[in-house]
């Protein structure tokens, strides 16, 4: 606590899209209570505080730090380490910090491959001299530096100790509010390492659709086929990650007639979300003929990106080198 007696709050945006920042805004007027309860000491999107100011904080100066985004650059890593040292409670906030999310899909490719595509091969790029970003550059005015990209993207807990995880892309306002209110009321927090602001079952448990016995001969995709609004999406052949995804969102996507994409990550006691989904999906393929099975599996577009859309950087696969 500072001189004014208020607990100190920080929020940081690493390798992510910024949706988590908007997620916090979505708690709407309750944000005023949060701003009143806490003293905001670092939040680049909201207030102007420099890194050197954070470096000058004493250790454990910040009471609550919400860290969103994965670790993709040496700047992300530096800030993760810095904020860990300066925070009593560090929360991996949102899917990127929790398990890598969409930026984690980049781990399918080498850093060089990503650079070559982004600065050379992509259709919208014109770069005849084949320039690549340099981390150091000397200009007449002086030396300038930009952060270096790391080889892979990792979730926050791969580089520092994390106290809690709030999943979601982005975390949903009711859950953020619940967590903030619990903290502000002084309620006892769950054990360190817990996933908070989410359910303990799967998205299927929150889904209002009618389920029957699943038997799939072909996969469908939204955009090429229109889902029936009342029936289980998986029953209809749409790849819905509901069975392999933690509850907590209230079934937002399925209620909007769109399959679950899996952003709340693996349910409790599941160590690999993609493997769990792959397993569930295999079980419902309606064939025992190896050739037909190959054909059905072959019709899947981007299986890795579908099963591991949010969790590749936290999956068992991350430990395998190519």
């Amino acid at each position, binding site marked *: 606590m500072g001189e004014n007696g208020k607990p100190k709050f920080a929020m940081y945006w690493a390798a992510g899209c910024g949706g988590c920042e908007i997620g916090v805004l979505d708690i709407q007027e309750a944000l005023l209570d949060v701003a009143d309860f806490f003293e905001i000491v670092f939040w680049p999107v909201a207030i102007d505080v420099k890194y050197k100011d954070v470096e000058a904080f004493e250790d454990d100066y910040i009471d609550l730090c919400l860290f969103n985004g994965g670790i993709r650059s040496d700047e992300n890593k530096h800030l993760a380490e810095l904020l860990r040292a300066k925070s009593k409670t560090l929360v991996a906030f949102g899917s990127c910090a929790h398990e890598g999310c969409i930026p984690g899909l980049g781990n399918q490719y080498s850093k060089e491959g990503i650079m070559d595509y982004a600065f050379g091969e992509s259709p919208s790029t014109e770069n005849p001299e084949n320039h690549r970003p340099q981390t150091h550059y000397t200009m007449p005015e002086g030396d300038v530096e930009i952060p270096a990209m790391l080889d892979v993207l990792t979730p926050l807990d791969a580089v520092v100790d994390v106290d809690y995880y709030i999943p979601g892309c982005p975390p949903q306002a009711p859950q953020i509010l619940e967590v903030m209110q619990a903290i502000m009321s002084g309620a006892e927090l769950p054990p360190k390492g817990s996933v908070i602001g989410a359910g303990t079952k799967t998205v299927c448990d929150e889904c209002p659709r009618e389920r029957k016995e699943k038997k799939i001969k072909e996969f469908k995709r939204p955009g090429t086929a229109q889902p029936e609004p009342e029936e289980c999406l998986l029953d209809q052949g749409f790849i819905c990650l509901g069975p392999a995804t933690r509850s907590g969102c209230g079934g937002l996507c399925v209620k909007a007639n769109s399959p679950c994409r899996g952003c709340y990550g693996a349910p409790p006691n599941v160590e690999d979300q993609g*493997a769990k989904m792959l397993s569930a999906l295999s079980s419902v393929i309606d064939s025992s003929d190896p050739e037909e099975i190959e054909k059905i599996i072959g019709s899947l577009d981007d299986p890795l990106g579908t099963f591991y859309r949010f969790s590749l950087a936290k999956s068992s696969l991350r430990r395998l080198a190519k």
Partner: protein
Amino acid sequence: MSSADFEPTIIGFLCRWCSYTGADLAGTSRLKYPANMIPIKVMCSGRVDPSMVLRALADGADGVMVLGCHPGDCHYHEGNHKTMRRVPMLKTVLEQYGVDPARVRLEWVSASEGDRFAEVVSEFTEEIRALGPQKRTESVA
């Protein structure tokens, strides 16, 4: 490491009803096969969750075998039918990630096929030996 000094570590998930009994038969028949495979007895090949295969590879296996009853012979009627679909799908995902799908192999071995057990284990061990060690990332926690 040259392939001559490389001894592959192989994890085998063996169905309790057919393939594990087949392995026993290979033993009591004194058939010779490489000692590289560490057998893990499971109730059914359908019990083998793809995450178990991935974890074996991530934790140090160079190859993983899943051995179950022949289709139609499953003690639980169709546990192995699920395996028949899971393993190819897992291989597709491994391939897309850049890991050789040949490191995972599904075979049907019945309780009376001790000779077949010895044969598929020998064959797979040599295949993995030729592929070399599965590399792992060190820098990622």
